[in-house]
């Protein structure tokens, strides 16, 4: 009521940007929250191996062991086949001895691989911890800064809200009394003043 076209446009824009603000916040904030919570959970207690690294290296260990197991199982058959195909005469048990040698070599390799994996796992744990810690702290501080941005907006908005119930009441009283006087001086002044005052109080935010 009583709005100019410009005021109506400004009011519409205000509602639109408020809605966009909420929508964008609801789009971004859950992603931030999810990533932060995941990283905090993954990092675990101070000094512990990040869960993601532990899981990855457990899977790697199983896969490497399976590969060595397969080679070790195949070694006796391969050695026997090699002797048969070679066409040379050999002592009894030569194929078995060759197989044992292959298996011993494979075991050395398996242990060396396991040690390499152990070193890589420790390094990966520390790198992951450094990365996660850096992201957790950086993002959290960014989130607090962003919260302050919202607070600054709220303060600016609040400073634009100039409502004052008593001011509104006084203004309404004066207007009401003037109208009441025109209608019926005396009683009209008082009645108009009271009605105007009450209306002004509520219009002024009371």
């Amino acid at each position, binding site marked *: 009521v009583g709005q100019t076209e410009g005021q109506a446009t400004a009011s519409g824009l205000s509602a639109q940007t408020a809605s966009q603000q909420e929508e964008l916040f609801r789009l971004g904030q859950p992603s931030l929250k999810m990533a932060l919570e995941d990283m905090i959970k993954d990092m675990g207690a101070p000094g*512990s191996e990040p869960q993601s690294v532990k899981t990855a290296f457990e899977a790697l260990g199983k896969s490497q062991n399976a590969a060595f197991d397969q080679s070790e199982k195949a070694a006796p058959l391969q050695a026997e086949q090699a002797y048969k195909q070679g066409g040379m005469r050999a002592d009894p048990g030569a194929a078995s001895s060759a197989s044992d040698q292959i298996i011993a070599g494979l075991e050395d390799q398996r242990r060396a691989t396991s040690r390499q994996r152990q070193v890589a796992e420790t390094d990966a744990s520390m790198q992951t911890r450094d990365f996660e810690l850096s992201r957790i702290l950086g993002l959290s501080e960014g989130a607090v800064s962003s*919260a*302050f941005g919202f607070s600054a907006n709220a303060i600016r908005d609040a400073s634009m809200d100039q409502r004052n119930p008593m001011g509104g009441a006084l203004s309404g009283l004066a207007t009401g009394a003037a109208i009441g006087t025109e209608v019926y001086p005396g009683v009209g002044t008082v009645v108009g003043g009271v009605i105007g005052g009450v209306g002004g109080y509520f219009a002024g935010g009371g």
Partner: protein
Amino acid sequence: MGGRDAEAERAAQINQGLSREQFQLGYQGAKAGLDYERGEYAGQTMDQTGKWEAKMTDVLEGAALTRGGGSDIRSQITGLEKADSAMALGRSGVEQEKMASGLDEINRIRSVLSGHGLQATNLASQSGALQSQAISEMAPNPTMSTILAAAAGGSAIYGAYQQKPGSGSGVAQERTATYAGQTGPAGSDSATLNLGRL
């Protein structure tokens, strides 16, 4: 004005709500990160035993391989010497690496704690600045200001009425009586007053 004020109030409430929610998330994250790092500083550093044991075993096995073979005692002694040297060098290397890694770790923890601790205190300072800004936006007491303004307006009207000559006010009549029979210097208040009466 009511529409604008209501809009401003609504916007302030939305921003305040988002601020609270976002702050909570950021605060929890920063607390988790700094608590973790303080735990490490207190001694709960990452266990690297497996890594150093693996490296040491590599050294021992590598040293054993350098021993080589030989049937005569001279070759065997030479092989032992090589193996012992390789083992000693390898172990020293691993120990040195372990020591350097420990120092790096402590420096890293100190750097994270101090850097992000400072960042947190800077944010606290920013929060304080916002608080000051918020206080500055508060009128001392809007209702009381209005009452005082109304009272001031009323007393001004009353004062004007009192000053009005012939208004029936005792003060104004007394003053008029005082100046009525007097002629002050030209341009003086009483002279002007008397001129007005002529």
